[in-house]
């Protein structure tokens, strides 16, 4: 239950595959800290090497006894979270990412976005999901 709650909170702030790749790296660093003799190592790493928005969520839920299990759960859960590959004609701003993720969460569910940029498509997007691909670009419309 607690595991699902932390996943649910994290998926609200981790919107892209890139964000999650960073999380997987952060989980690795946190896991390593558990094997250090310094009792405060975990807290120090959480503060110094983990993004604040992620650290806040982890700090809120994690207790000393279940750290390994929780980190394992998060790693597995985020690796299993499906991606939508989105090819755009421009570099998405943070605002664009927020807008797209909002739409995706409402219309598809908990899915990460893996962004790629290809300026030749002019506008719109090429969408790949679950082995299927759809070209909804302006370039396609023009041809």
């Amino acid at each position, binding site marked *: 239950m607690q595991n699902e709650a932390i996943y649910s909170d994290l998926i609200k702030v981790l919107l892209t595959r890139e964000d999650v790749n960073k999380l997987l790296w952060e989980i690795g660093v946190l896991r390593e800290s558990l094997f250090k003799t310094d009792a405060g190592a975990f807290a120090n790493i959480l503060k110094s090497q983990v993004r604040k928005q992620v650290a806040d969520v982890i700090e809120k839920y994690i207790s000393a006894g279940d750290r390994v299990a929780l980190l394992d759960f998060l790693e597995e859960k985020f690796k299993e979270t499906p991606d*939508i590959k*989105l090819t*755009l*004609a*421009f570099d998405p*701003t943070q*605002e*664009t990412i927020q*807008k*797209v993720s909002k*739409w*995706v969460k409402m*219309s*598809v569910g908990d899915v990460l976005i893996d962004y790629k940029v290809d*300026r*030749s498509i*002019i*506008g*719109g*997007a090429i*969408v790949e*999901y*679950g082995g*299927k691909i*759809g070209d*909804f*670009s*302006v*370039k396609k419309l*023009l*041809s």
Partner: protein
Amino acid sequence: MDDLLKKAKRQSKKIIKGASLEAAELTKKIALDVEETALVQIKEMAAAIRQEVTDSKKAVDAELLEYKKQRMADIDEQVSALVVETSKKILGQAIDIRSHEELVIKALEDAKRSNLF
């Protein structure tokens, strides 16, 4: 003796005349046969030439039609490519970030309508 000689002369003249007539008749007949055969051959040759000309014209017409079609398709393709390239240049520069975002959301909506999700 003279009578006999005269008779022989007359007889030979008659034979020669007969032979000449026969030869003339034969020559005439051969000429007619040759003419008939030649006419038939000329007619056959003319028909063959006509057929060959017709076939060649048909082949040339077909080739010409195919060439015209290919050229028209090439021109269509070139015009389309030009339109696309021009549009790309104009649109690529003209689309601002808000319009880009709207186009992306529309693309996602279209993807959903196409049962991609």
